[in-house]
């Protein structure tokens, strides 16, 4: 083993230790606000409700828990992975920052230097997002009560607007599939509750239908 390899192995093993410690703390911190509000109001969700929430979360995003860390791994490496899946915004903020840090220092992909530079880039991006979001959260809190009524009225539409924009973004990558799945999902929303199936299941059913539609589409367009 040459010296470079020795250094990077040492780096990885220190990163592993650091990572496990901070990930464990993050996991606890993640629940603190929920526990706090439940405690002061005395309203704890029951175990079965928590389970239901967890199933809903896993049904909606569970694939992402596994697929996303895997897909970004080659860009952010192990040390970066620890931070990325606590800090989020991986595709939009972390990966570009890691990439830029490597680019300006002329790193060759896969080298120990590239691994360390990508980690430096991710650390930098974490500082940036924390500082910016904190700044605007504090300023925003001051500004909110002073907002004109028109602005507050506009914020009432935030949900359909965000979802509409997100759907446009997702659908623009495959418009035909986007339109078909929108139609099957609307049908699902209208029909599933009438069949006596609990409303919470609509989403899962719609996702399964969407995947089936995609499979048919894949088979039909495959040469």
């Amino acid at each position, binding site marked *: 083993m040459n010296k470079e390899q020795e*250094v*990077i192995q040492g*780096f990885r093993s*220190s990163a592993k230790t650091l990572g496990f410690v*901070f990930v464990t703390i*993050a996991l606890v911190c993640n629940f*603190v*606000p*929920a526990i706090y*509000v*439940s405690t002061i109001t005395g309203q704890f969700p029951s175990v079965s409700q*928590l389970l*239901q929430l967890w199933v809903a979360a896993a049904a*909606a*995003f*569970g694939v992402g828990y596994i697929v996303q*860390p*895997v897909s970004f791994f080659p860009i952010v490496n*192990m040390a970066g*992975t*620890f931070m990325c899946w*606590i*800090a989020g915004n991986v595709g*939009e*903020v972390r990966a*570009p920052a890691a990439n*830029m840090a490597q680019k*300006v220092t002329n790193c060759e992909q896969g080298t120990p*230097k590239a691994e*360390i530079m990508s*980690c*430096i880039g991710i650390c*930098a*991006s*974490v500082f*940036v997002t*924390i500082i*910016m*979001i*904190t700044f605007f*959260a504090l300023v925003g809190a001051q500004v909110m009560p002073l907002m004109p009524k028109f602005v*507050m009225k*506009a*914020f009432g539409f935030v*949900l359909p*607007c*965000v979802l*509409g*924009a997100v*759907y*446009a973004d997702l659908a623009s990558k495959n418009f035909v599939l986007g339109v078909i*799945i929108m139609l*099957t*999902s609307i049908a699902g*929303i209208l029909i599933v509750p009438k069949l006596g199936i609990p409303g919470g299941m609509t*989403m899962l059913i*719609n*996702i399964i*239908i969407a995947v089936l539609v995609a499979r048919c589409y*894949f088979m039909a367009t495959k040469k």
Partner: protein
Amino acid sequence: MELKDIMNSPMLWVMSSFMIINLFLMALMFLRLCFKNAEKLGIPKEECITGLRSAVFTAIGPAFAPVIVLIALMAVLGGPTAWMRMNDIGAARTELAMSAIATGMAGSSLEAGKLTMLGFIFALWGMALNNSGWIIIGGYGAPSLNKAVDYLKNNFNDAWVKLFMAAAALGLFSTLLGNAIIKKGVVNQKNLFAAVVSFVAMLVIGRFFKGNKKIQEFSLGLAMLVGMFVTAAVM
């Protein structure tokens, strides 16, 4: 205590800060580790600082995207929660989707004025449970991911894996969008209008400013703002 008082209470700011402090310290410690090992590899400190600086500049642009959504999310879930959840894992759309699912389960809604205390509590638990998925699998799984990466690439058709993911996301968001527009089987015309305006705005930004990276970084926030204000003005 009223929901509004709790949502923005000083204590909730404190409770929400632990996550962010932990993340900040984590990045500091990792940065220290990087600099130490860079030195061992013979990389000059100036080079590390150059990398750090360019990453800072790169991150500023796209960081505005969560900032814009933050302001909107603050109106719905209060300052501390929006602050914490925009700083941690879960993109804006994920947090919104999860809180929409959770509040719905509590018989409440994220719409202005309709959020109940139980709805808020469910949203907090829902987001925490959802984020745990990434923290546990991304965090504890990091060391073994290297092997998994190779396995996936070698054993599945790449195009189908991508399409599968895209379809699952489309299924999820079409349902959420449908639920935001159709209430108890009846179409809410204001919400439909808002969604259509944002949808079109997003497509327009995507098509006509395709080469403009800066605008693309802001596109989701911009399209959302256009939809919100056009709807407020017209409806």
